């Protein structure tokens, strides 16, 4: 026996490590991301690459400064964080948006809190919010899809110019997200139902052809990835179901009350980053509650905040704010919602002892 350091039991392991989890989540994001690349062409690919590289460099520097072993980089968490940031950025944003976002997420959002597992807030959403507040113009410059193979598609050089040399975006290609559009239409006196009937196509929205962030607009591909994660048991149903059903119920009630100023539930589900947030971001284990009930409350809270800000707030989309807001409640939710231990009541008291008569009755029933 070569080792002198004895390990306590168990001497068996399921075989999946932290990097296994992170890489599977990244794998689940591939379809939506690839579709984003197709829609928005070279600039989106450059922005994505810059964001990932910046995150990896930031992570390595942070580990060095914090005297952590360098191989922590291999856990894949920096890759996943950067991936999620890139997916939620405007696809033709300049390169430094990606660099700053990645740096903020990794250095401030994660390592300043003590590294992986210690952060209170979702690093990707923290970075996105910081960027939105600091650079509102760049963070809300949306473009119409210009897929590869179509006339509007950019060449490699044009792409480089957009991402790295702040070239002007052609006027013909600038657009607005449906959520932003709706907000503007409502102020112009167009009713919500008119807007949806004339300006909006569900098929296009669900497939992802509406203007939006780099890779969050295709609900169907996000759901595909989500199905994979649910199947691999990396995420559970509680948060997404609670989040989405809260949005559906709230928007449904408001729509029934007044369909001129409130959009119907399906519009909410098919717009913005709600699917990505519900399945990939709110489910981030580090910043979500532990217990099942806690997760339900957390998801419902996210849904509530999303709906409130989308409907009455100053921003067209609110998923990042909602997640950060509820992240703050996670420690509290963990404190009050705990699973019931075996042999104890929900309050933690031992279960009452059964009487002999009860037991006898049970045995007789079994026979």
């Amino acid at each position: 026996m070569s080792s002198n350091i004895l390990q306590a039991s168990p001497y068996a392991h399921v075989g999946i490590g932290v990097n296994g989890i992170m890489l599977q989540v990244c794998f689940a994001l591939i379809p939506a991301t690839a579709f984003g690349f197709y829609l928005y062409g070279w600039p989106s690919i450059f922005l994505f690459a810059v964001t990932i590289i910046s995150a990896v460099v930031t992570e390595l520097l942070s580990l060095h400064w914090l005297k952590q072993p360098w191989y922590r980089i291999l856990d894949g968490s920096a890759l996943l964080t950067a991936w999620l940031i890139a997916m939620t950025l405007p696809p033709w944003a300049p390169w430094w948006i990606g660099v700053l976002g990645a740096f903020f997420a990794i250095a401030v959002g994660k390592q300043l809190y003590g590294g992986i597992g210690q952060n209170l807030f979702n690093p990707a959403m923290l970075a996105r919010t910081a960027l939105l507040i600091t650079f509102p113009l760049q963070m809300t410059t949306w473009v119409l899809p210009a897929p590869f193979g179509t006339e509007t598609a950019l060449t490699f050089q044009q792409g480089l110019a957009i991402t790295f040399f702040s070239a002007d975006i052609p006027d013909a290609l600038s657009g607005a997200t449906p959520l932003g559009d709706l907000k503007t239409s409502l102020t112009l006196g167009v009713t919500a139902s008119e807007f949806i009937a004339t300006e909006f196509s569900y098929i296009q929205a669900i497939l992802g052809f509406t203007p939006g962030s780099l890779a969050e607009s295709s609900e169907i591909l996000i759901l595909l990835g989500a199905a994979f994660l649910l199947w691999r048991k990396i995420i559970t149903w509680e948060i997404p179901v609670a989040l989405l059903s809260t949005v559906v119920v709230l928007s449904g009630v408001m729509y029934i009350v007044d369909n001129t100023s409130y959009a119907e539930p399906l519009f909410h589900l098919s717009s913005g980053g709600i699917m990505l947030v519900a399945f990939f971001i709110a489910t981030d284990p580090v910043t979500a509650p532990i217990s099942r009930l806690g997760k339900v409350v957390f998801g419902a809270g996210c849904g509530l905040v999303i709906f409130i800000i989308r409907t009455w707030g100053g921003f067209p989309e609110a998923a990042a704010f909602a997640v950060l807001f509820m992240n703050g409640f996670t420690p509290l939710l963990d404190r009050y919602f705990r699973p019931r231990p075996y042999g104890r009541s929900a309050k933690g008291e031992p279960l009452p002892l059964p009487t002999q008569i009860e037991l006898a009755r049970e045995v007789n029933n079994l026979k």
Partner: protein
Amino acid sequence: MFKKFANWAKSRGGVHPIGHKEKSAESAIRPASLPDMLYIPLRQHAGASAIPIVNIGDKVAKGQLIAVAPTEVSAPVHASSSGTVKEITDIVAPHPSGHTAPAIVIKTDGEDRWFDAGKIEDPFKTPPLELADKVAQAGIVGMGGAIFPAAVKLKQGAKHEIKTVLVNGSECEPYLTCDDRLMREKAEHIITGARLVRYILQAYRVVIAIEDNKPEAIKAIQAAAAPFGSIEVHIVPAKYPMGSAKQLIQWVTGREVPAGARSTSVGTLVHNVGTIFAIYEALMLGRPLISRVVTVAGAAINDPGNVEARIGTPISHIIDECGGYSKPPEQIIMGGPMMGMPVISDNAPMIKGATGILAFSEEEMPSKNQSPCIRCTSCVKACPMGLLPLEMASRVNAEDFDSADDYGLKDCILCGACAYVCPSHIPLVQYFQFAKGKQAIAKDAKKKMEYTVNLSVAKQNRIEEEKAAKAAEKAAKKAARQKASQARKAKSKPAPTSAPESTKEESNEQ
């Protein structure tokens, strides 16, 4: 059907580790050859060490009592073959610390001669408590690894009304197949043993629970149980830790054992099939527990299988019975991989609770590269007790044991399901064992402290009492003297009747 569904909904957590049972499950139990030396530890059970009753140089026969149990919650030890007592000394014991423990060393004479202890005429006509005593005398302990004296459970059970005797044949630990083989090969004896236990406890029914990954054991037990109406065979799903008493009781009866209570409180008594077989041998054949079936497996073993080995046989001797090592083992484990303990040397002997001897190669050992918790809650989902291992671990890390208790440490059964799934490879069980150890030390210290305080208070009281008594004596003498002088002074006057009373009052005041 509905009941089964309800059970699925109720039964929580658990993991499905790879079985690795195929190799050892397929070959019949092999009797191990007689070793030259037997090293029989005096403590192979929960409770105090047994006390030797033989001297160096004594000749002993197989099955002869060589050490007695000092308390009720302890077990006697018997010679597992005939020979001469060579030494009574400390040996390398099967304990993770590598500490030594007292043992009786017997040089075997090769005759393997039985000690005639006599057997019971008809156990089913003997008073139950007498049978329970016989089980105690046979030194039988929980053979599933719990090593709690079996007779104590029987006697406790006899005090309660036991509805169900639950025979635990689920054997949920990976690699282990000793119970599986025992059920296949000794089904009838196990049934007789189960009937004996039922008779001792006067229980309503016997349920034999077997995991669905042992179809042949199920078949054998079903066939052997068929003639007896009150013996049911329950097929339970293969899932770790199904063999844990609490989880098995919940599965079979639908009831949870209340926290802090025993299985008997829900009318159930659980015994492992190995224990039941030992009870059969003790009561029907009059043989004490001197050998057991043990699974020898792991990638470092040439020919994995099940061996019936005498208690006290060196591990290396048993491994030789299975073709020896195929490569240098990275770690030897006694018990299963999920809850077993590391053994630092293969010179350590077999004990009553050893379900397996596993020699793991380097590739079989899990990674030791620990990384920070990412709160993925895999451990929460795996925990069969519904606890929060990640919260418990972070509290233990901060040495805040009370808070860890609050998050479930007090209910933890140390099954290791959490550490098995932890993607960060955090040695959660090590944390919890450490915490429980510290708690036990603190509890002991508190007890000691209370004892010391009680003693000093008692001393204080005693001193005061003595003082009071002395003072009273003095006062009494004084009074007597006064009385005497008064009597002398007033020679003719009669003594006042109130005098003794007033003295009494005075002494009382003091």
